[in-house]
């Protein structure tokens, strides 16, 4: 048949329609009945504009005798999208086609784990947004190849490389198992919707391997991963919330590490007096307070967005803006373990500090820490090693760290709150108390022999405590320039903003991939 534009365009249109049918009406309906959107609907919801790549990739469906009886679109949808005016690479598994199994049947891989969408983000240096819903491996792939294969033949290099180049933001919506679960955690921010699950192996695999019968939500549910394992950062109410969270996180980050994050709106006056702080911090030192409220008071109005609120709760990590400058805010949480840094909190802090350093967000640290968490449970979970890693990561951070001392600052954990090798700027409020160790336990430990030998151990202990308490007056430390500044808390916003603005000059001159040299963590 001779070529005509009419028939050629008709064929293009027909194939376009076919791609839109995904795995067929029945499977799309099943997806919707379970409260989940299709991959095309998800992309449509986050992107104002989307140019698809590989739209016409398909694979043949065969009957039991091997005769081709039709085709289905490939199980991955990807392309170039626009999110809030910014170009991004977007992709996701189509769960209605073979439950989103990887596409070993195509000439070129489309999806995450080193596929086209990752090349697009890498080569054009644009953020990567992934919607994850898939079962990982699929035995039918062996059928197609005609032999079994080792997963180790596939390289993860590109996925890991992206972690130091462009923002990688992931939403798990539905089930993510095996390789899909693995890909989901190789990200700067991950969100999982309620009812979704993520695991190395699902309940049937667990039953076979361990003889245990477990419910899939108990095994790897969204709630568990955002409160216990920390494998996912944030929990979302539903798909719309997850997509909002992806968009929100993107707003704080640059397109890539060779750029600075965009400065936001500066309408909240930088010299606004933070009067509420005097009400938030109780005069009674035994009473804790809501550190999130302290953060909200200081940062630009409505700019605070918390990362990982449900796990490692002794520390709070959040993106925010101060005078429009995107920043990472970290604060000890006196409501949880009195703010003592345990292994989980340290791990969360390390991940956040690394993220801020990678994408050039200065860090503002609000300190109220009684020390590393103590006790048998904390020790068994490796608090000492994790705590030291937290100290290493903040010293290595290639961004200004402005530290605000709110109340307690005792022991080694304080070293995880500032960077003395850089400017090491620490600002104290008059509500502070600090030292090598809290006086009470410290006298017990430091003068054990003297107390035992004293004629009246109780009197000796009390006198020692009184003497040391007098020396613990924070003003004495400030007089010795052992603390850089003491300010009225109400001026915090202005003072912090001044230093952040000054820090922008250094940030601009250092923009680029990380230059961190300590390749080994303790």
């Amino acid at each position: 048949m001779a070529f005509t534009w009419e028939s050629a365009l008709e064929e293009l249109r027909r194939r376009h329609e076919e791609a839109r049918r995904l795995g067929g009406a029945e499977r799309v309906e099943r997806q919707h009945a379970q409260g989940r959107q299709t991959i095309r609907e998800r992309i449509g919801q986050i992107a104002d504009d989307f140019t698809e790549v590989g739209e016409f990739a398909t694979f043949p469906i065969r009957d039991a005798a091997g005769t081709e009886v039709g085709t289905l679109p490939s199980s991955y949808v990807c392309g170039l999208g626009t999110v809030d005016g910014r170009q991004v690479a977007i992709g996701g598994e189509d769960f209605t086609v073979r439950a989103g199994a990887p596409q070993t049947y195509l000439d070129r891989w489309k999806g995450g784990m080193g596929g086209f969408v990752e090349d697009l983000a890498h080569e054009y240096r644009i953020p990567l947004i992934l919607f994850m819903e898939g079962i990982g491996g699929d035995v039918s792939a062996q059928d197609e190849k005609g032999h079994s294969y080792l997963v180790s033949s596939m390289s993860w290099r590109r996925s890991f490389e992206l972690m130091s180049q462009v923002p990688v933001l992931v939403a798990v919506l539905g089930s993510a198992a095996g390789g899909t679960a693995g890909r989901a955690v190789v990200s700067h921010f991950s969100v999982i919707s309620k009812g979704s699950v993520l695991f190395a192996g699902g309940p049937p695999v667990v039953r076979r391997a361990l003889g245990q019968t477990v419910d899939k939500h108990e095994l790897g549910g969204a709630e568990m991963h955002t409160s216990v394992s920390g494998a996912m950062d944030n929990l979302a109410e539903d798909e719309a919330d997850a997509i909002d969270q992806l968009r929100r996180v993107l707003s704080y980050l640059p397109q890539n590490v060779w750029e600075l994050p965009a400065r936001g709106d500066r309408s909240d006056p930088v010299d606004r007096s933070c009067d509420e702080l005097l009400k938030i911090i109780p005069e009674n030192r035994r009473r804790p307070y809501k550190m999130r409220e302290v953060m909200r008071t200081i940062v630009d109005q409505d700019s605070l967005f918390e990362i990982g609120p449900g796990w490692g709760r002794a520390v709070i990590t959040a993106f925010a803006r101060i005078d429009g400058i995107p920043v990472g805010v970290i604060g000890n949480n006196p409501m949880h373990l009195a703010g003592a840094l345990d292994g989980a909190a340290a791990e969360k802090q390390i991940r956040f500090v690394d993220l801020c350093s990678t994408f050039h967000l200065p860090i503002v640290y609000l300190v109220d820490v009684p020390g590393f968490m103590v006790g048998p449970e904390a020790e068994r979970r490796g608090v000492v090693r994790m705590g030291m890693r937290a100290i290493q990561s903040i010293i290595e951070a290639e961004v200004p760290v402005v530290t605000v001392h709110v109340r307690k600052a005792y022991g080694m954990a304080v070293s995880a709150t500032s960077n003395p090798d850089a400017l090491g700027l620490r600002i104290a409020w008059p509500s502070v108390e600090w030292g090598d160790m809290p006086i009470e336990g410290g006298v017990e430990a430091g003068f054990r022999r003297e107390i035992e030998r004293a004629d009246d151990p109780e009197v000796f202990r009390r006198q020692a405590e009184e003497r040391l308490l007098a020396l613990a007056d924070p003003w004495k430390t400030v007089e010795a320039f052992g603390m850089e500044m003491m300010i009225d808390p109400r001026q915090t916003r202005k003072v912090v903003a001044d230093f952040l603005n000054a820090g922008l000059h250094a940030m601009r001159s250092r923009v680029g991939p990380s230059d961190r040299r300590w390749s080994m963590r303790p």
Partner: protein
Amino acid sequence: MHEVRTELTASVWKIVVPVGASVRQGDEIAILESMKMEIPIEAPVSGVVTEFLVEEGAAVQEGDLLARISAD
């Protein structure tokens, strides 16, 4: 009926309101003690406190039920 649970391992230092008290969301109903700090337990909803399942001095574990509130 709303359940009030503790998010941390602590001891019950004070029960602030009696059973039957009307409380507003955010009111302190009990105070726990952990790591030498007094941790307030706030009513998650406005309503009437129908029951306390712990006594002052009791040790509580993360996730333990402290009280029930019948919401308005």
